[in-house]
């Protein structure tokens, strides 16, 4: 039933007035539900949030733990209740995934709402940083305007083919290109490249051989960095390669930079990461259980 309902309800053709009406109805219903939730007495909120969290978590727990039939044909019917639940879980899975996608999509909308609320208030109150708020909102509106305008243009297949040629770009496509490819993408790369300056400055100021541990760390880092420098690695490996005379078991084989790097990676780095991953995994599992079962302090408040 659960898996069939959305298909039947939302199966109107894209762009039809019936579907638009249903989307508006769904949106209003959602807003109404959210509004109703804000009016719920404080004592009941915890139960509602706990119930929602528990049911959401329960679905995935059952999906992974409930026994599933090895094979299932399109016309198969469940033989007993256990198989019935298994079929239901399998059929409902895509609905739950799509539901999660929609909620995540709404989170983008929530972010936009939050930005608008904060920055419009700043502009209205004449905050000392109101200029930056204005720039942020102006950039957001401009990007949305040009990108959506270009998208609408490209929905026409003939126009879309025409726009493959930059000589035929109009103001909307040019605007989108300038804002997205010309500004946003370049600023994105520029911001990330700043890390190089911080890393170099930090390495110079902080990477000192003040203790045995720091010396080991520094020596290991040096070996790995040198092994990544093709020219250095080639010369060092070539030198030791000449000494071992193609015998992979020769003692000097161990001094090749690539051998050392592989040793560090395979025997020191990977086991350490495995240990950390196991620890964080157990922590996440414990935290997940606490949230799911409503044991986390303050959950639901």
């Amino acid at each position, binding site marked *: 039933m659960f898996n069939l309902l959305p298909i039947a309800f939302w199966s109107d053709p894209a762009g039809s007035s019936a579907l638009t009406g249903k989307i508006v109805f769904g949106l209003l219903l959602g807003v109404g539900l959210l509004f109703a939730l804000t009016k719920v007495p404080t004592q009941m909120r915890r139960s509602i949030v706990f119930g929602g969290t528990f049911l959401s978590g329960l679905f995935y727990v059952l999906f992974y733990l409930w026994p599933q039939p090895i094979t299932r044909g399109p016309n198969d019917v469940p033989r007993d209740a256990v198989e019935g639940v298994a079929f239901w879980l399998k059929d409902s899975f*895509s609905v739950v995934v799509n539901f999660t996608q929609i909620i995540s999509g709404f989170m983008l909308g929530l972010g936009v709402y939050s930005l608008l609320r904060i920055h419009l208030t700043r502009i209205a109150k004449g905050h000392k940083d109101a200029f930056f708020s204005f720039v942020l909102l102006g950039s957001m509106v401009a990007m949305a305007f040009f990108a959506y305008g270009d998208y609408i243009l490209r929905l026409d297949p003939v126009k879309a083919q025409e726009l493959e040629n930059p000589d035929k770009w109009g103001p909307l496509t040019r605007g989108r290109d300038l804002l997205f490819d010309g500004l946003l*993408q370049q600023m994105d790369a520029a911001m990330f490249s700043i890390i190089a300056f911080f890393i170099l400055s930090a390495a*110079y100021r902080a990477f000192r*051989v003040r203790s045995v541990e720091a010396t080991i760390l520094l020596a290991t880092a040096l070996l790995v960095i*040198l092994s990544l*420098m*093709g020219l250095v690695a*080639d010369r060092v*490996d070539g030198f030791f390669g000449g000494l071992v005379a193609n015998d992979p078991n020769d003692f000097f084989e161990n001094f090749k930079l690539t051998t050392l790097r592989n040793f560090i990676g395979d025997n020191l780095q*990977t086991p350490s990461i495995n240990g950390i991953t196991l620890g964080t995994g157990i922590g996440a599992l414990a935290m997940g259980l606490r949230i799911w079962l409503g044991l986390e302090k303050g959950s639901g408040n």
Partner: protein
Amino acid sequence: MSIANKLQTLPKTAIYGILILCTSLPLFFQIPLPNNPDQASKDFFREMMTLDASKPVLLSSDWTNSTRGESKGQMKSVLRMFMRRGQKFVLYSTADPQAPQVALDVIAEVNRERIKKNQEPYKRFEDYVVLGFFPNAEAAINGLANDFKATVKGRKDFPVGKEATDVFQSPVLKDVDSIKDFQMVVVVTASKTSNFTVERVYGKTKLAFAVTGVMGPETKVYYQSKQLVGFVNGLKGAFDIEQLMEKGLNVDSSASFRDDTHPAPVEGFKGDDNVGQGTRYFPTLHFAMALMIIMVILGNVGMVLAKKDSSKKELGGR
């Protein structure tokens, strides 16, 4: 100020200035560098070059221009291999809303290369399908792994010269029911989506990743456990793969381009446009790393000299 102090307190502006010079000057020169490709890169190359062109590949593009130094070179090499081999692929993104457009820009770039060489460009919908962006990475990958058809249902793509059409009408997806119908999932990523993919997709089809340098160590864990058939790590990986595309594997006598674990020769695309960002940026990485080593040595020499000075003063004071 003593030399020890000077060595320890070089002005930031000078350090930054030297870094800018070291990273930008090599870009103006062609500096050929020797290379010994990693085993993971060799495995990645071999698996990509031995794919069955009649079955599609699922390509996840989860990077934006913030990591283009590494990811774009990797993505371009992957696309060049796909297009030259006639490999159909399905593109999707889960990490960032910008990611699909960034990937489409690279596809257009590789297509322009093909047109220049009088080769047929890869056609959207016919040769590759774009599924677009899925906002929740973990749920999306979970859905794709467990019920591909239902998760993708309703998505449309734009065939050349036609209106938006259901993706399952594309020849690329005509025989696809589940993720097992893809012969490989290739993830070009700068985010956690690689971990989600291993967690959800491993065991259903082959996995190969192209990740940024900082993600290398955590990705190596999955490669060592044989959950990945190969992976390309950062700028070095991009350089490796470009070199392998030029020289092939087990083709010439060079020891660096031999793989004794799989001795069968794998031809590359000798003489074709194989050089990309990996080859161009690798000298820059060299200079940046050399500078880092020099700066760390300078700082430590300064510290040792300062210690000696202070111990001399202490002895003189007694």
